[in-house]
């Protein structure tokens, strides 16, 4: 089932900071819902383990994350591909970072994803809603991370 996602979120950091955050595998590991391992396998390419638990549904995926079409500090495409016991998932999202002010950046995202296997055949009714929820969780985690790192800046 194809899932379309689109939205924006303004984050309380500069464009450069946000760019750095979004290119930091450790940050991605912390903010991508369910992500439990990230291992760099090449430039802008990571192997990722995901354990997603949404309500009663849990699925484990192993896959890759790739950052493509980089135009620092304003744009990249994040591609995700994973496979697990309940099927596969893949998707890509274009991120655009717009300067609002020195301390604020608007992150616009537009992407689409698809899942296959049992989830696709059984969960079609609620997939989009769940996907939106997961995007929300990503942003919450990112905001939380920003709040934490701003309060206690990580040592270089």
């Amino acid at each position, binding site marked *: *089932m*194809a899932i379309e996602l689109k939205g924006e979120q303004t984050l309380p950091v500069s464009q450069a900071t946000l760019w750095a955050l979004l290119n930091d595998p450790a940050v991605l590991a912390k903010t991508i819902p369910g992500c439990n391992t990230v291992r760099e396998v090449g430039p802008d390419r990571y192997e990722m383990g995901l354990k997603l638990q949404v309500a009663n549904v849990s699925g484990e995926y192993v896959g890759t994350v790739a950052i493509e079409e980089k135009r620092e500090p304003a744009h990249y495409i994040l591609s995700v591909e994973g*496979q697990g*016991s309940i*099927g*596969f998932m893949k998707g890509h999202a274009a991120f655009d970072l717009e300067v609002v002010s020195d301390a604020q950046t608007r992150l616009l995202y537009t992407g689409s994803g*698809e*899942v*296959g*296997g*049992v989830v*696709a*055949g*059984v969960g*079609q*009714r609620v997939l989009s809603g769940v996907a939106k929820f997961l995007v929300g969780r990503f942003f919450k985690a990112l905001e939380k991370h920003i709040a934490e790192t701003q309060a206690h800046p990580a040592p270089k």
Partner: protein
Amino acid sequence: MSNSKFRYIGQHRRTKEDPRFVTGRGRYVADIVVPGMKHVALVASPHASARIKAIHADRALAMDGVHYVLTGAELVAATEALMVGVDTPLVKRYPLAHEVVRYAGEWVAAVVADTRALAEDAAERVEVEYETLPCLLDPEAALNPDAHLVHPAHGSNVLYRRKFVWGAVEEDFAAAAQTLSFRCRWARSATVPIETFGVTARWDPAQQLLDVWASIQMPKYPDQIARTLRLPGNAVRVHFDVDVGGSYGVKRGIKHTVLVGYLARKLGMPIRFIEDRLENMRGGDMHGPDRIFDMQVAFENDGTIRALKIRALDDVGAYAGRSPLQLGKPVGAIVGPYQIHSVEYEPISVLTNKTAQEAVRGFGQAPTNFAIESAIDRVARHLNMDRVALRRHNLIRKDQFPYLIPSGTTYDSGDYHTVLDKAMAAADYPALVAARDAARAAGKLAGIGIATCLEPSGGNSSFEPLFNPKNLTTTWMDSCLVRVDLSGAITGVMNTSTSGQGHETLVSTVVGEILERDPADIRVVHADSLNALPSNSPVGSRMAIMLGSAAAGAAKIIKANLMAIAAHNLKCPLDDLVYRDGHVSVKAEPSRVMDWDALIEIAHRRIHQMPPGLEPGLQAKFVFEVPTGGGLPTADGRVQMYPCYSFEAHVVLVEIDPATGQPTLTRYAIGHDCGTMISPQIVHGMTWGGIAHGIGAALYEKFAFSENGQLASQTFMDYLMPSAMEVPSVDIVDHCTPSPLTVFGQKGSGEAGYLGAPAAIACAINDALAPSGHALDELPMTPMAIWSTLQSAGSMK
């Protein structure tokens, strides 16, 4: 109906099979326990189109209780490719995918374990690496020369394409006062029995024999299993005494059985595979026709329909099987019940990355009937003519039978006008019109649907040579053996399994009728395939005709033998004897009688009293050939398809909530003529069931695929079959025009109701939509589809 000339046929009698079903004593495949059997679960592809890069089974094999993981590479090397109905040898198919997967849900590996749950645990641990390939889902796009090829070796996505021209089509179109054209679409739905497919197999190395218990309805199933497994035919024994929990065409199971048979032999363990519902829906290969019709009609201003052009594009999914032949059977009723002078028919069968299609009730006739009836309604609307009057004008008249249609088939008999009249009377048509108009006046949408359709019956194989010149099959016989034992008890032996059609009742009724013995005392058993006489299984509405005639034929031999014994012992010419209730007496001297017991005693024990040349014992077989069968198609594709043509006239009233688009069937009547009904309760039941199934196809059911080829309706939460809350009470009115081709005048009825219900309901919905000026030409006509149509018509409140 009154059948005074028959003693048992046509009477209300209890069905032989029912007592075991109501007490929970049916014996279905999942009820059969073979000691030591192991269980299979499947690893299915999540991708609709991908290359298999690697399969890692070690984690699965390391589990306790797991015996084997079979992959395509091994199976492909060890078995023959599965049979394809058309001449496409490079569209190869095996039970497991090899190198490439072609639809989401296709089997990639089979895991054998001690229990089904363990097998599923292990299946989860089989890791498959895929590289995704382009995915083809649109049947029109499949025709493009640059389309992704589902089977590159075949060189095209077209499995079958031919343009038949029967009669002076172009001249008729040119001469006709008017023409119209439209496109309509029959959605991919199926019969979806409540029992999934299942099979258990056991290999006996000492006997070199594969025993198979399966939920099966498939012509030549044992032969195909044996060939594919590279075994002699007599090394496969299929047990036909397994109750089949519904089929209506789809329980084919060749790939399942080859898989399980291979594993049983390879591992030396009995193996069971019962599809779960997910496996059944996505990989059971039981989806039905998925068809786009482009229709053109040529007609006169008085409503006379001259000619038809039909282009039927069928999306059969990723593999062929018998499915392309579902475009072939409709050739035998390509003009429906109408006098249409000439026809052009272009069936096109294409491959896509979807679950494979199999035979579904009617074998392609119900979609064709839907297209033809939609055309009739459109002509009526175009001419502003009453749809019933238009049909009456074009229906073949009773006095025209036998009636030869342009595609070479002769319809045996019928009285279509009378049956339509009866249906109209049963529905109280004037009241129906009043109810529709009242509903409209009250702000509702309401419409009446009429459909007059044929059910070709007596299932013959003529579509095989028609669609595959290398296939010269001209017989599709069926058989019966009747035996009277020493005690005088009668047993009928049939040679195929039964999936709810009541064949035991059929055989016992027919044999009882001929021998004048109470059918309640006649036992009917199912032979296994090594004991069986030839059969082509209960497909194509054929068993009343084929098995019924075979049983009658065998019983007649028994009766003739009894007469011969009596003649010999009473020293009387046969002509002077009379047979009554199993006793034979001298016409002129009724006191000179040999009773049943005495005749049986002689047949079984006293060869000295037997007439010379007559075998001792009392059993007879009869192999019955399809009436009118035996011919090959002509070069221009004309052929006698099926022998007998049943007729049905549906009248239905639908009301639609204009605010939500939700339709409700408020009145439904059907006039039905299948000749002599052997068991009216069974015929009525199948007719009601066929209508319910047709309601599903018309309003609810669809195997929907997502943009990336995922089957979105994989469960009963999304594949919506009508319940008792959706199916209305339906009035059936019977009519009997006996077939001149069968022993009792019977025709087939296994597809009754289904062949016309979708057409009738679609016509009713379009009658309801007519005031909006729009039409809906795609099944299923869901509330959203109806609402969207009304939206486009701009008539929503």
